[in-house]
C-alpha cells in the first residue's frame, strides 16, 4: 500500500465516483438458478482498452484459427506425410513416434546428411525468435495439390496437412558454427482438420533418430562456447506438448486457447534463401512452386527488417520488430498474458501506454528493476528491459524458451528506451 497522493484529483474524480456509484462490474448469473452457468465469455461488455488507438485491422485469430468443418476434398495422395487413419477426419496426419517416419527428411545428423525431402521447403525469418542462441533450421511442407493463402499481416493461411518443422541445434563453439553441430530437438506443427497440433521430437545421443517426446525433456547443464569464446552452461528445455501452447496460442471468442504458428508471416518470410544454388525470395519461391496463392507484387509485401542490421531500418523499427517476434505472441490483445497484463508489444500497437510507457504492471512481483514497464529515456529502471536482461528464475521473460540473456537483444531494447524522450512517469 502506498500513501495516497491525490491532492490534484479534483472534480473529475468526483464525477467518476458519483457516476459509477450505481454501476456494477461484470454480468454474472447466480449458480444454481435456471440459467445455464457462466459460459466463460465473462469479459464481454467491458471496454477493451487494448484496442483503442489501434486501427481496426483483423488480428491473427481469424486467419489462423482452425477451419474445422471444411471438407478438405483435396487429394492427399502422393505425399509421405502420414496417412489418414480410418475413423479420423479426412486429411488427419498420423503422428509417428519417430521423426523419420514422417518422411519429411532423409539422412541423419549422425552422417551429416540430414536433409529435407523435395517439397519440404527450407526457409528463414528476417528476424528470428531468440532461443538461447540455438541455431534453428526451418521447413514448410504443404501437401500436394494444396496451397497457402497470403496474408499481409497475419500468419499465412496454411491448408490442412501442412507440417512446419524447426530443428534446434548448437555447435560446440559458436566461433566455428558449422562444426560439431549437435541437434537437440525437432519441433513440428501440424495443421490437422481440427486445428494446429504441436509435437516435440528429441534427438537420440547417436543423432540417428529423433523420438516423439510429448513430455518434453530437459538437457541439464548443456554446454557450448559462445561467439566471444565464453563457455556457457544452462538447462536446455525441450517443451512438453502442453507447453507449446504457452507461446503458440490465440484466445478465441469462447475464451479457449487455440494453437497457431508464429513466424510464418509474410513480413518475416520476405527475404532471400538459397535454393539449389539459386538465391530466391522465399515468398516468391513458394508462389512459383504453387504453394502460395494471392501473393501481391513484391513492392506491396511488408518486410520486417533484420533487427540487428542498422542498415535495414531505424532503431525504432528494429526494436519494435524484435519485440514483435520475441514477445508479441503472448503480449497481444488476443493472447492470455496480453489480456492479463494489458501490455501489447505487437507491431500493430501504436498506443504508447499499451506499449508500456509509464505503465505500471498489474502484478510484476518483486525486484524487477522498477515500477513501470518502460520509463522513457531510462532502460535501467524499465521492467521490460529488466525482464529481458535478467537470467533470474521467475523474473525473466519470455516465460519459456530462454534461460540465457540475449545480449544483442537486450542492448537493442536498452538503446530504444534510452532514445525515447525522457519521462519520469511520476
Amino acid at each position, binding site marked *: *500500500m502506498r*500513501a495516497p497522493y*491525490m491532492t490534484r484529483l479534483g472534480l*473529475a474524480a468526483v464525477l*467518476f465516483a458519483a457516476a459509477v456509484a450505481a454501476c456494477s462490474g461484470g454480468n454474472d448469473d447466480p449458480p444454481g438458478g435456471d440459467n445455464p452457468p457462466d459460459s466463460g465469455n465473462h469479459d464481454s461488455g467491458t471496454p477493451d482498452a487494448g484496442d483503442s488507438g489501434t486501427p481496426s485491422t483483423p488480428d491473427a485469430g481469424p486467419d489462423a484459427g482452425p477451419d474445422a468443418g471444411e471438407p478438405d476434398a483435396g487429394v492427399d495422395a502422393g505425399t509421405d506425410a502420414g496417412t489418414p487413419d480410418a475413423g479420423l477426419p479426412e486429411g488427419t496426419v498420423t503422428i509417428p513416434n519417430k521423426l523419420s517416419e514422417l518422411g519429411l527428411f532423409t539422412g541423419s545428423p549422425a552422417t551429416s546428411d540430414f536433409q529435407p525431402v523435395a517439397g519440404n521447403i527450407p526457409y528463414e525469418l528476417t528476424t528470428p525468435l531468440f532461443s538461447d542462441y540455438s541455431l534453428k533450421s526451418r521447413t514448410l511442407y504443404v501437401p500436394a495439390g494444396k496451397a497457402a493463402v497470403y496474408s499481409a499481416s497475419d500468419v499465412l493461411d496454411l491448408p490442412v496437412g501442412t507440417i512446419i518443422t524447426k530443428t534446434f541445434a548448437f555447435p560446440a563453439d559458436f566461433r566455428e558454427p558449422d562444426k560439431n553441430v549437435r541437434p537437440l530437438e525437432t519441433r513440428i506443427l501440424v495443421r490437422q482438420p481440427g486445428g494446429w497440433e504441436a509435437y516435440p521430437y528429441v534427438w537420440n545421443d547417436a543423432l540417428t533418430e529423433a523420438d516423439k517426446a510429448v513430455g518434453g525433456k530437459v538437457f541439464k547443464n548443456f554446454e557450448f562456447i559462445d561467439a566471444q569464446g565464453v563457455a556457457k552452461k544452462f538447462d536446455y528445455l525441450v517443451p512438453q506438448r502442453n507447453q507449446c501452447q504457452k507461446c503458440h496460442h490465440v484466445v478465441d471468442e469462447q475464451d479457449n486457447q487455440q494453437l497457431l504458428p508464429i513466424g510464418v508471416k509474410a513480413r518475416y518470410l520476405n527475404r532471400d534463401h538459397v535454393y539449389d544454388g539459386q538465391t530466391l525470395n522465399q515468398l516468391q519461391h513458394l508462389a512459383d512452386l504453387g504453394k502460395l496463392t494471392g501473393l501481391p507484387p513484391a513492392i506491396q509485401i511488408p518486410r520486417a527488417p533484420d533487427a540487428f542490421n542498422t542498415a535495414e531500418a531505424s532503431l525504432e523499427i528494429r526494436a519494435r520488430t524484435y519485440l514483435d517476434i520475441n514477445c508479441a505472441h503472448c503480449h497481444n490483445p488476443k493472447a492470455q498474458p496480453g489480456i492479463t497484463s494489458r501490455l501489447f508489444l505487437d507491431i500493430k500497437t501504436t498506443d504508447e501506454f499499451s506499449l508500456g510507457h509509464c505503465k505500471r504492471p498489474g502484478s510484476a512481483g*518483486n525486484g524487477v528493476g522498477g515500477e513501470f514497464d518502460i520509463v522513457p529515456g531510462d532502460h535501467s529502471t524499465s521492467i521490460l528491459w529488466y525482464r529481458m536482461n535478467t537470467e533470474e528464475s521467475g523474473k525473466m521473460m519470455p516465460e519459456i524458451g530462454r534461460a540465457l540473456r540475449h545480449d544483442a537483444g537486450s542492448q537493442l531494447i536498452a538503446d530504444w528506451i534510452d532514445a525515447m524522450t525522457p519521462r519520469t512517469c511520476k
Partner: protein
Amino acid sequence: MNRLPLSRVSRAVLVATLGLLAIPACSDDDDDRTFASANPDPGPGVPDSGTPDSGTPDSGTPDSGTVWPAEFSCTDAQRTTVTFNPGQEQALQNEVNELKPCTTIQLGAGTFRFDNAVTIRQDGITIVGAGRGAQGEGTGGTASTVLDFSNAASNTNGMDVIGKLFTVRDLALWNAKKDALRVENSANVFIQRIRTEWAQENNPDNGKYGIYPVKSRYVLVEDSEAYNAADAGIYVGQTRYTIVRRNIAKKNVAGIEIENTKYAYVEGNTAIDNTTGLVVFDLPGNPIKGTDILITKNIITGNNRPNFASVTTSSSTVSQVPAGTGTFILASRRVEFVGNTWGDNETVDIAVLSGLSIEPNPVLWAAAFYNFASADVSIHDNTFTGGSGGNIDHGAPSMTLRPLGFLMSNLYAYGKAVHGVERVEHVLWDGIDPYPRNETIANGVNICFVNNTLPASSKESVVDLDLMAVTAKLTATTPDPTGAWAETRRYNQGVAPFNCSGFSPALALP
C-alpha cells in the same frame, strides 16, 4: 512521488471515459442477486483416498441447497485411471501431455522429482496422491506424496493446469520455481488436502504463489496448507464463485488473498505468522469487480512476519504491506466479517482502504467500472483478543518500502506520547471513500462494527484516519503531527456512525 495525477491525463481521455459510464452496462446491476449456496460436488467416481487429516469434516458439508453448475462432466464409461510411482516421472510427463478427458492420475507414495512443470490441458482430470504430508517435509513417506521441483528448469511452475472439472488432492508441491499450483481459465476446480511449500523461510526468491487459481469459475480450496510463499500462500483471483475453507496459511507474505473475485465464501481458515493474514482486494486494470465476500470463523492472529517481498523496486501490492496487518481490504465492497478471531497483529487487526491509495488515477480503474472505492463492510460478532496495533510494521517501518506503515508509525508515536493512545484501534479506515471526503457525511463508506467481543483493555475500536489529510500534514516541509492527529477520529463500538447493521441486500448465507 506523485503518480500520474489526473491533471496530466488528457481531457480527451476523460471525456471519452466519462462517455463510457453512460453505456447500458451501468444499469446492469446484479448486486441484488442472492449469494450462492456453497455446495460443490466433486462428482462421482473421485476416489476418496486415505485421508491423512481425519477429524476434519469432508467436503460436501455444511450446506444444503443449490449446487454449483458443472461446466463439464464425465460419464462412467469415460473414466480411466493411470498409476505412477516415484521414478516414473518421465512416463508421467508423457502421460499428462496426451491425456484423454476424465482420466484419474493416481500417484503412489514417496517423492517424485521433476525437472519441468507438470502441465495439464484437459478436462475432467483428477490427480491424487497418498497424502500431503506435514509441514517441512520435502520428501514423501509411506502415506504421503511429494512432488519436488527443487531441480526443475528455471521459470517453471509446479503444477500448471487449464481444464474444466479438475481435482487435485492429497499431495504436496515442494520448492516450485514459480507458482506451486497454478490453475488458470478453468471451471469446477477442486483443490483438496494439498500442501504447497518452499524449504526456506523468508526467501524473496521463493515462488510467488502457493495455491493459485486464477481467472476461473467455481473453485473450491479446502483442507490445504501453504507455507513460505513470497506473495500469497493461497490466492483466489479474478474468479467467480469460490469457497476457501479450513486451510492453513503460515509464513507467507500474504496468507490468504481474495483478489478481484465475486462471490467468495471464506470459512474456517487459519492465517498465522504471515506478514498479513487474510486480505481482500481489487487491483486496477482488471475487468472483474470483486464483491460479495463472506469471511467467517477464520483465525487471523500473530501475522507479524517481516515483509520479505518488500525490496526496492517492488511493484506488487503485498510487498508494500506493513508487517502485522491481520486483514486488509482494498477497493472491495459487500464484504462481511462474522465469527472470526483477530489478535496479536502488531500493526492493525483490520484496515479498510480505498483503491485510490495504491492507484490514484481513476482512469486506470476503468476496466472494472471504476472499482477503486471500498464500500459496505460489515464487521460483526467477531472476537478481538487484543495484543494488536502496538508495534507498527513489527517496529521497523520504512518510508520508501512501506509508506503507509511509516506514516502510521509516526502518527501513533505522537498519539502515544501526547494522548496516551497505546495501540492502533482494531479497525483502521483510511477515510477516503466515497471520494472526495465530505466531513458532513459520516461513514459514507458504510463500515459497520457491532457486537464484536473486545478485550477489556480496548479503548476506541474504530479509527477514521483521514489518511489524505494526515499524509499532507506529516509530509509537509514542516511536518505537523499535532495537526495530523487532530484530523483523526476514534470511535467506540456501538456508537454512531459505525453502529450500522450491515448492508442491503444482505449476503445470502449458505
